[in-house]
C-alpha cells in the first residue's frame, strides 16, 4: 500500500511537470517591457486575475498548516486563520481606486509617489525583499519536507524540484505567472475537492461528520479552543492586516485589466477560497474521525502520514499535486515581487538605465531574470539548513511589511500630505523595542506599533510643499 502510494505520487509529480511545461510559461515574450513583466501590461482578464489571486492566496504552508491545525485543535483553526485572512480580504476593495489611479509599477514605487518621499520606496522595498525571501524559504522547506516524506527521497531533491518549477514560471514575468496560476488553481481545486468528497462518501453527510467529530472531544468545537480569545483575536487581526497590506494582492489589483475586473476578482475570491477551506475542513475533520491519534516528528511528516493513512491513492495523489501547485503558485509571485524590489525599487540599482532604448530595457529585464534566479537559489540554499529561527524571522518580516504598507494603503486620501516616513520610523522603532523587551510574538507587538503609527500620522504636521 505505502509502496504503490509512493509510486502514484511520483507519477503525479511527473504529470504536474509535463502539464506545466506544456500549458504554462512563456518566458520571453516578443515585445516585452517592464510594465508587461511586472504587471502583465495591466490587462489581465477576470479569469486570469481571479485564478492568480486565489492561487497565490493558497500557499503550501497554509494548505498543510490549516488542515493539520484543524485536525489537532478543531474549529479554533477556523477562527484563528480563515477569519483573519477573510478580514484582510474585506479591506482590499477599499484600496482599489487608489492603487489603480497611479501609474506605479510596484507597491514601493506607489508609496513613494503617493506620499512624495523616495525614502519610503527604499524602506518598503527592503522590507519586501526580506519578507519574501524568508517566505520563499519556508515554502521550499514545507514543501521539501512533505514531498521527501511522500516520495521517500532526500528533502533537498524535493526542494530542488519546486525550485525548478518556480523558476520556470517566474522567468516570464507576471503574465506567465498568471497563466500558470490558472492551471495551478484548477489543480488545487480538484486536489482539495476530491479528498473532501471521499470523506463524505465514507463518513456520511457533513452533519454526520460534524457529529462524529464533536464526539471526539468538546474542546474541538469551541471557537477559541483551549486558547483565550485575548490571544486568538490579536493573532487574527494581525493576519488580516498582513493580508490587507500584502503587496502580492495589491499587485494583482494593479494588474487587473479594469477597475471592474479588480472588484469582481475581490468579490469572487471569497467564494473560491471559501470553497477550498470548506474542503480542507472536511478533510481535516474526517481525518480526525478516521485516525484519532497521529504522532509524527513534525508537521510535514504528520501531514504526509495523515493523508496516506486516510486517503486512497488517487485522492492522496491529487492532494499532493494541490500542495505542489499551491507552493509553486505562491512562491513564483513572491519571487517576482522580490526581484522587482531588488532591480526596480532599490534606487541605487537602476540609475544607469533609462526607458525607451532597446538595449537598456532589454538589459533591465535580463537583470530581473538574473535576480530571480539568484534570489531563488539563495532561498534554496537557506532552506537546506535547519535554521531554527527562520519561521519567526519570516513572520517578523511580515509585520515590518504591514507597518510599511497598511496605513498608507487604507488611510483616506486627504492624509497623503502627512509625513509618513517619520511615522513609519517611529512605529518600527516601537515595534523593535517591544519585541526586544517583551516575550510576545511579532504579530502582537505589531498592533500597538501600528496604533502609534496612526497617531503620529494623524497628529503630525503636513510635509512641506515642494
Amino acid at each position, binding site marked *: 500500500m505505502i509502496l504503490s502510494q509512493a509510486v502514484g505520487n511520483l507519477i503525479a*509529480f511527473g504529470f504536474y*511537470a509535463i502539464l506545466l*511545461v506544456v500549458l504554462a510559461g512563456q518566458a520571453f515574450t516578443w515585445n516585452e517591457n517592464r510594465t508587461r513583466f511586472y504587471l502583465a501590461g495591466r490587462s489581465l482578464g477576470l479569469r486570469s486575475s481571479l485564478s492568480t489571486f486565489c492561487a497565490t492566496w493558497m500557499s503550501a504552508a497554509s494548505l498543510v498548516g490549516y488542515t493539520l491545525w484543524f485536525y489537532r485543535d478543531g474549529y479554533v483553526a477556523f477562527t484563528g486563520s480563515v477569519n483573519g485572512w477573510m478580514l484582510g480580504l474585506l479591506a482590499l476593495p477599499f484600496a482599489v481606486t487608489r492603487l489603480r489611479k497611479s501609474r506605479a509599477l510596484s507597491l514601493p514605487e506607489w508609496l513613494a509617489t503617493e506620499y512624495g518621499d523616495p525614502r519610503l520606496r527604499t524602506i518598503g522595498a527592503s522590507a519586501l525583499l526580506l519578507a519574501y525571501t524568508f517566505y520563499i524559504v519556508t515554502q521550499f522547506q514545507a514543501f521539501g519536507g512533505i514531498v521527501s516524506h511522500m516520495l521517500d527521497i532526500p528533502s533537498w531533491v524535493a526542494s530542488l524540484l519546486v525550485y525548478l518549477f518556480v523558476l520556470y514560471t517566474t522567468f516570464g514575468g507576471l503574465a506567465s505567472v498568471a497563466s500558470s496560476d490558472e492551471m495551478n488553481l484548477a489543480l488545487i481545486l480538484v486536489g482539495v475537492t476530491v479528498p473532501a468528497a471521499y470523506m463524505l462518501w465514507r463518513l456520511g453527510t457533513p452533519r454526520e461528520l460534524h457529529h462524529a467529530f464533536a464526539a471526539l472531544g468538546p474542546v474541538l468545537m469551541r471557537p477559541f479552543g483551549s486558547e483565550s480569545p485575548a490571544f486568538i483575536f490579536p493573532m487574527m487581526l494581525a493576519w488580516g492586516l498582513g493580508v490587507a497590506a500584502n503587496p502580492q494582492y495589491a499587485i494583482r489589483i494593479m494588474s487587473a485589466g479594469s477597475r471592474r475586473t479588480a472588484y469582481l476578482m475581490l468579490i469572487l475570491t471569497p467564494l473560491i477560497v471559501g470553497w477550498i477551506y470548506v474542503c480542507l475542513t472536511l478533510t481535516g475533520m474526517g481525518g480526525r474521525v478516521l485516525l484519532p491519534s497521529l504522532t509524527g516528528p513534525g508537521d510535514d511528516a504528520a501531514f504526509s502520514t495523515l493523508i496516506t493513512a486516510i486517503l486512497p491513492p488517487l485522492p492522496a495523489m491529487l492532494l499532493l499535486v494541490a500542495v505542489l501547485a499551491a507552493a509553486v503558485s505562491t512562491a513564483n509571485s513572491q519571487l517576482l515581487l522580490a526581484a522587482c524590489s531588488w532591480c526596480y525599487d532599490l534606487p541605487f540599482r537602476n540609475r544607469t538605465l533609462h526607458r525607451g532604448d*532597446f538595449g537598456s530595457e532589454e538589459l533591465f529585464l535580463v537583470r530581473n531574470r538574473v535576480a530571480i534566479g539568484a534570489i531563488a537559489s539563495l532561498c534554496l540554499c537557506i532552506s537546506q539548513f535547519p535554521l531554527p529561527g527562520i519561521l519567526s524571522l519570516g513572520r517578523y518580516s511580515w509585520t515590518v511589511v504591514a507597518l510599511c504598507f497598511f496605513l498608507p494603503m487604507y488611510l483616506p486620501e486627504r492624509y497623503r500630505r502627512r509625513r509618513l516616513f517619520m511615522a513609519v520610523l517611529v512605529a518600527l522603532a516601537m515595534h523593535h523595542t517591544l519585541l526586544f523587551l517583551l516575550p510576545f510574538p511579532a504579530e502582537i507587538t505589531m498592533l500597538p506599533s501600528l496604533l502609534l503609527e496612526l497617531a503620529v500620522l494623524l497628529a503630525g504636521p503636513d510635509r512641506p510643499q515642494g
Partner: protein
Amino acid sequence: METRIKAVVALLSIILIASLAGVSLYQGYIGRIEDDSARILNMRDEFSALDRIGATRLLRKIAENWTISQTHERGAIPLTTAAGAFYAIPDGRTILAAIVFRQRHVLVAGVIGLLLAVEAAIFLAWSLSRPLKRLAWAFEQIRSGSWVTLPPSRRQPYEVRRLTAIFNDMVDTLRRWQKLERQISRMDRLASLGQMVAGVSHEIRNPLASMRIHLDLLSESVSPDGDESLRILGDELDRLNRTVSQLLAFASPRPPLVGPIHVSDLFQWCRQMLHASLRKGITWDVSPVDDDLGLWGDPQQLRQMLLNLLLNAVEAMPHGGTIHFAAQRNGNGVEFRVSDTGPGLPDIIQERIFDPFVTTKADGTGLGLSIVHRIVELHGGRIEYETSPQGTTFVVHIPGQREEIRQ
C-alpha cells in the same frame, strides 16, 4: 519560436527519459524475475515435503511477491509439494511497483532533467530571438525616421554578425538614396521655380529701367526740398534692380563664358569690392597665391561667387572677426576656401542653405548661396562647408580642365 523550441526539447527529453526509465524498469523486472526463479528452482526439492500453507510460506521467504496457484500462467514454475502439484506465479504488478519504488530516484532525476532541459531550451530560444528582436527594433526605428545602425559585436555568432552587417549596409544605402532623392527633388523644385522667377523678373526689369531713367530726368525739375526723397527713391530702385538681377542670375543663368583666369586677379578684385566693409573691425587674412595659379572659368560668375561668400562672411560678423581667404591647386583644379569666425550656420536652415529664399537676415534675399551653388554646378565643381559655433568655412572646388566645364 520559444514555444516551438520548448516543445521540441520537452518532447525529446520526455522520450529520452521515458525510454531510459522504461528500459531500466524492464531490465530490473526481468532480472528480478530471473533471480527469483533461479532461487525457487534451487530450493525446489524442499517444497516436496510441505503442504500448501507451508509451501506458500517458504515461497514468500525466498521470493517476495510470488504466490502459489493451481493454474498455469506465463512465467509460472511448477512445484511438487506434499499436497500435490502447484505453480509458483510471480505477481507482476507488485514486483513492478517495488522496482519503480526502488528506482524512484531515476524518475525524480528524470523530472529534474526535463525541467532543466526545458529551461535550457528557453534560453536557447532567447539567444536566438534576441538578435531578431533587435533587428525588428531597428527597423521600427527606421520606419519612424531615425537612422540607426546596429553595433557589430565579436561575440555574436557568425550568422547574426552577417545579418547585422547586411542591415547596416542597407541603412547606408538607403541613406544615400534618400540624399540623392532630396537632391533630385531640389533640382525639380528649382527648375519650376526658376521658370517662374525668370518670367516675373523680366517683366519687372523693363519697367524698372524706365523708372530709373525717368527718375533721373525728374531730378532736374524738382525743387531742392525733394532732393533727399529723390535720392532715397533712387537707392531703393537700385536695390530692387539688384535683387531682380540676382533673381535672374539664379533663375536663368547664362552658360559660363569660359576663359583663362588668374586667381590673383580674382583676389585683387574681391579685395577692392570689400574695401568698405573691411574697416568695420574685420581682419582680412589672405593666404598668398602663386602668380601663375590659374584656371578656366567664367570670370564674372566666379567673381560673383566669391563675392557672395565673402559678403556672407562679413555679414556673419557684425562685431568684427577674421576672414580667411585662400586658394590652392588641388589635382588639376583650384580649391577656394572662405572662412569666418562668426557664429556658424543656424541649425534650422543647415539642410537648405543652398535653396533660394532661405535666409535669416531681415533684409536678406536668401539668394546669395543659391547663386553660388548654381555657379559651382555650372563649372562642374563641388561646394562643401564646415560649420561650428566658432566659425564657418566654405570650400569650393573648381576643376581646371576645360572639358569638365559644362558648355
